[in-house]
């Protein structure tokens, strides 16, 4: 029972992270129909941005933030917001410089460009003048107190804040996409760019907005990731790309282009991975994820919440 609860907790934590990141993939895919391979690198920038800023704040205030003496709560919030703004700008720039010139190019070209952008961000980030090529750890921004204990499973502040932030952001996004004018415009553009422009929707602006939004969620993902694991791998570390790929798998499994699907998919993939690890073999985590991807794509190509499309001849 304890194993089950512990695994469930882990699954929720990692699943909500996947979901946050998957949202970025799914929104971009919904509109531009390509896998934004550079999205995982925006997550990394979110993590490293949080690290650099909190280290700077730490030095600036002359304090040392450890698990026992964490930073005050507003610092965490400040870092999160700053990381989101930073990554939003990065996302905007990437779209303008790399993807916008390819609006009418074949999708394959855009996909390759995205790989290029990803490699660029990864390796630029590793320059000594930027983040360096070694992992570093982020100062503690939150206390790690146990709030509730169920059996031998402890629910800590970190767990609650992590999950809470992820859920809050997703609720916010859900509201934005389904209940605001901009959200309507986003869905219209993703359904049919031409018709949307005939409604007076400024398509390019909506696409930029989507990138900014996705990148901000990615930043939040990176921030939460760094809170959870403290140690942050260098920007070209393959574990980041894998994280991104799993989030993308979550988006596909949930139904690509579908905002709610990304959330469902994130939790599904997180659970699959964690329960697989807990009850079978932890070293095979990637196999479960990619295995389920292949199965889903072959048997339900639209994903859990998606629907199949008919190709016109």
């Amino acid at each position, binding site marked *: 029972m304890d194993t089950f609860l512990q695994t469930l907790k882990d699954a929720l934590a990692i699943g909500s992270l996947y979901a946050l990141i998957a949202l970025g993939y799914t929104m971009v895919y919904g509109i531009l129909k390509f896998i934004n391979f550079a999205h995982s690198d925006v997550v990394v920038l979110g993590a490293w941005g949080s690290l650099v800023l909190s280290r700077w704040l730490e030095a600036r205030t002359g304090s040392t933030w450890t698990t026992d003496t964490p930073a005050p709560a507003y610092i965490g919030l400040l870092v999160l917001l700053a990381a989101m703004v930073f990554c939003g700008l990065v996302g905007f720039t990437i779209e303008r410089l790399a993807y916008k010139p390819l609006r009418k190019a074949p999708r394959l070209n855009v996909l390759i460009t995205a790989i290029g952008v990803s490699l660029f961000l990864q390796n630029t980030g590793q320059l000594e003048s930027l983040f360096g090529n070694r992992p570093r750890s982020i100062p503690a921004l939150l206390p790690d107190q146990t709030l509730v204990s169920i059996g031998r499973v402890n629910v800590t502040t970190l767990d609650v804040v992590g999950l809470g932030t992820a859920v809050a952001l997703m609720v916010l996004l859900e509201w934005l996409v389904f209940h605001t*004018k901009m959200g*309507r415009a986003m869905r*219209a553009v993703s359904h049919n760019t031409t018709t949307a*422009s*005939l*409604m*007076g*929707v*400024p398509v390019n602006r909506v696409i930029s907005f989507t990138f900014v939004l996705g990148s901000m969620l990615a930043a939040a993902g990176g921030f939460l990731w760094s809170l959870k694991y403290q140690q942050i791998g260098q920007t070209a570390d393959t574990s980041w790309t894998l994280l991104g790929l799993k989030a993308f798998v979550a988006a596909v499994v949930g139904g690509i282009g579908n905002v709610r699907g990304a959330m469902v998919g994130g939790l599904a993939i997180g659970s699959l991975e964690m329960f697989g690890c807990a009850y079978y073999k932890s070293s095979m985590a990637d196999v479960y994820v990619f295995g389920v991807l292949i199965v889903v794509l072959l048997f339900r190509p639209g994903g859990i919440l998606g629907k199949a499309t008919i190709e016109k001849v």
Partner: protein
Amino acid sequence: MLEVRDVSVSYGAIKALHGVSLTVEQGQIVTLIGCNGAGKSTTLRAISGLVKPSAGSIHFEGKPVSRMPPHEIVRLGVVQAPEGRGIFSNMTVRENIDLGAFTRSDKHAIAADREKAMELFPRLRERISQNAGTLSGGEQQMLAIARALMARPRLLLLDEPSLGLAPQIVQTIFKIIRELNAPPPRGAGTTILLVEQNAHMALNIAHHAYVLEVGAITMQGPAAQLAASDEVRKAYLGGR
């Protein structure tokens, strides 16, 4: 109000329009008829800014619009209900209607206009919270027109509103088009450029008509006059 001068459009190697010119006067219904592939939709696409003419110019109320992006042209009041209706099938009817008012921010006026649209199309009121994809073809066409009206068009471009619809529904749609065009208080006095394959219906309600064949205007004149001519029938059914 609208002046299209010598517009040519090419898609790759295919030249879809060769120097098309036409004018739409305020308050009129002008129709553009011709068989499939003649370039009718392309003409509307050029007016809406979806394709850039390779030659010629388009002016709306004196302003050159041929280099403007589509959403800015909508802001000027040139609104198109596209062929095939272009309904956002995974959004509700209401969301579709509201999208039509995207360029506007006057909430109360939008609500009032939505109410007016419902009066015009009572069927839509019944289905307001359904997914638009579940509507029948005729209802979708009504939705497309209602949605275009929400932008308060000064010039409404209708692309094949009768396409794929049963004759009775076509009658209804055309009746509404006429009402829209009627001067206030009976209608909204909207100027309309109507692209139609159904020549009889179109010529019936239009003031002025142009016949398009293989990317060029071959005939034009008052609608009644064209309707009487033998040429129109030939243009469609071929003469021996």
